[in-house]
């Protein structure tokens, strides 16, 4: 396996770089979308809320692979042609937006009712309550779940190989085709995913500690 790593080292690095790029970009896109969805859900009038709920239901209720195929093969028929990397990143980001919105919703619920009552009684608007009271707490509480989401995205980025993006999994396919050593090639790829996810999960613990609210022991542990 080591000889594979040496021989294809350059390609593996390029593939890994692309996998991470897909994960990071789709995470950021998803984060922006989840912010929009959350504001729509919490503050929007009825019809806007319904649109947000429908968006979330659609992206959570259909396979990510189908969503990627739709964007890559479906959009050209509407006159929009995206390259494989863009289509995959966009699809994964749109999908992640729905999941991140669900994360924010569940942590927003953890902010206790009395704080909301007091905030309103002080004369804050609903938008101010959301911005100054709910979100600062909800986002901190969401760090573990969002870390998890990011690791999911890194793994889901493997689906981009289906439409030909030369990311890490695709490099595994390439190595297999060239050497017929499928098990070793994919094991090598799997270990690289593992190393990156593990390093990320470790560093997110530091982020949690950094952003912890003093006195909240479960965060400073």
């Amino acid at each position, binding site marked *: 396996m080591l000889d594979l790593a040496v021989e294809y080292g350059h390609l593996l690095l390029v593939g890994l770089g692309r996998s991470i790029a897909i994960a990071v970009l789709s995470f950021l896109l998803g984060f922006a979308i989840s912010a929009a969805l959350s504001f729509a859900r919490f503050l929007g009038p009825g019809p806007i809320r319904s649109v947000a709920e429908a968006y979330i239901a659609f992206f959570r209720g259909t396979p990510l692979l189908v969503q990627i195929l739709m964007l890559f093969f479906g959009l050209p028929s509407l006159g929009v042609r995206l390259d494989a990397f863009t289509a995959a990143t966009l699809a994964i980001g749109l999908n992640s937006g729905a999941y991140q919105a669900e994360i924010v919703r569940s942590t927003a619920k953890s902010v*206790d009712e*009395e704080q909301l*009552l007091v905030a309103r009684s002080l004369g804050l608007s609903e938008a101010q309550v959301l911005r100054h009271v709910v979100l600062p707490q909800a986002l901190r509480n969401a760090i573990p779940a969002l870390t998890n989401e990011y690791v999911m995205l890194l793994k889901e980025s493997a689906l981009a190989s289906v439409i030909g993006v030369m990311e890490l999994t695709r490099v595994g396919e390439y190595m297999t085709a060239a050497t017929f050593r499928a098990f070793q090639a994919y094991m090598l790829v799997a270990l690289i995913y593992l190393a990156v996810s593990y390093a990320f999960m470790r560093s997110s613990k530091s982020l949690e500690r950094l952003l912890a*609210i003093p006195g*909240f022991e479960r965060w400073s542990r």
Partner: protein
Amino acid sequence: MSLLSLEGVKAAYDGVEVLHGITLSLEPSERLVIMGPSGSGKSTLLKVIPRLIEPSGGRIFFDGLEITAIRDERLLRRVRSRIGYLPQHYGLFPHMTVLGNVAFPLRVVRGLPRREAEERARRYLALFGVDGLADRYPTQLSGGQRQRVALARALAMEPELLLLDEPTSALDPESRLDVLEALFEVARMGKSMIIVTHELDFALEAADRLAFMEAGRVVAVGGPGEVLDSNPRIREFAERMAGAVGSASRS
């Protein structure tokens, strides 16, 4: 003119009516204590006044303005900011320091510049002896300290009316005395307030009137001594509750 008046105010949760037409009024600088068994609608009554819960019927007037008729969000928020409200468990924002908790609404709602807001916040914290805790976070404080910070936050907004929901009932005996002392201090300031409490001493010494609630209705209202004297059943309840919360303050 009354500072606050309620005319046949009703409230319901999921279609179940919990306030059956409350009629009450409060004069400026008046202190009204509300007592009653749990589930009698005391907390709901407090929340309905600034429309933190929408009343299902009746009318509420504050300083000549019919709160229940306000349709404009902005105006409602302005009226709310003139009425301080303290829930039973303080409702402090855990992600802000003590100073931040008090100064933040002054900046965001009152529009004070940071320095001025913090100065005023410190002044009110000092009033209740918690200015030394300005840089701490709420979870690092005892219950009594939290309640005093919450009191400082409400008062720093300089509201014309203060609504307090059982401010001492979640506290240990020592904290309870600290908060009780703070409440007497607020009473000395001549602040108009409605306070739901079982603190008999506070009712007898600091309140102008006592209202007794039962099953969503005010069944007796008047001078505290007079209500207790004319209703043996209420007196018995009040004394039993006072016994339950501790008698340390009677000495």
